[in-house]
């Protein structure tokens, strides 16, 4: 079961897929793929000591 962004993504791009396996692969590719990892890395690199202590 999905909610939020994952639910939106499912109904936008994955709703026509019949197999559960394919839906899983589609979700993983989008939310855990290279783009997601790069986004996380950017956020990680943007963390500063000042932000943490504030």
């Amino acid at each position: 079961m999905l909610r939020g962004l994952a639910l939106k993504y499912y109904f936008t791009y994955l709703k026509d897929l019949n197999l559960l396996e394919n839906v899983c692969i589609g979700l993983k590719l989008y939310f855990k793929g290279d783009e997601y990892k790069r986004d996380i890395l950017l956020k990680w690199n943007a963390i500063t000591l000042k932000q943490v202590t504030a």
Partner: protein
Amino acid sequence: MFIRDILNNLSKDRLKEIRDYLCENRVYIRKEARKSIADGLLGAIHKPTPLKWPADDPTNDPTNGPTNDPTNGPTNDPTNDPTLALPLLPTTTQATDQLALQGSFGREITNLAKLYTDEVKYSSEQDNFDFKFKIFQNYCLRASVPK
């Protein structure tokens, strides 16, 4: 029990193939709502005498012959008229399978939806997909939704 384990380990498509093959060869496998194909196969295996083909079964006897007496079968064997009997069978069984899939598990899926709360749904933000998927599988098992 050993046979049940073997059947449970097989995929649904494989079980369907076995059932369809047996049906083509005049072994009746009972189809019931909320019972897996494996249960139907097990029922047929453990019966001392083979089940008679019921007259009201939508798939009906593949031979198109008298449905009540299996001993009459060989005389009406599909080999007598392969052009009629063979092309019709797969379409009818597939259609009934699809109907069974769509119509029979509504209650289970409703139960599954009731079990779910927002916390256990996957939202992509700070959620582990594999973890949430395992929860989904676990809930399916609890609500007895077939695979």
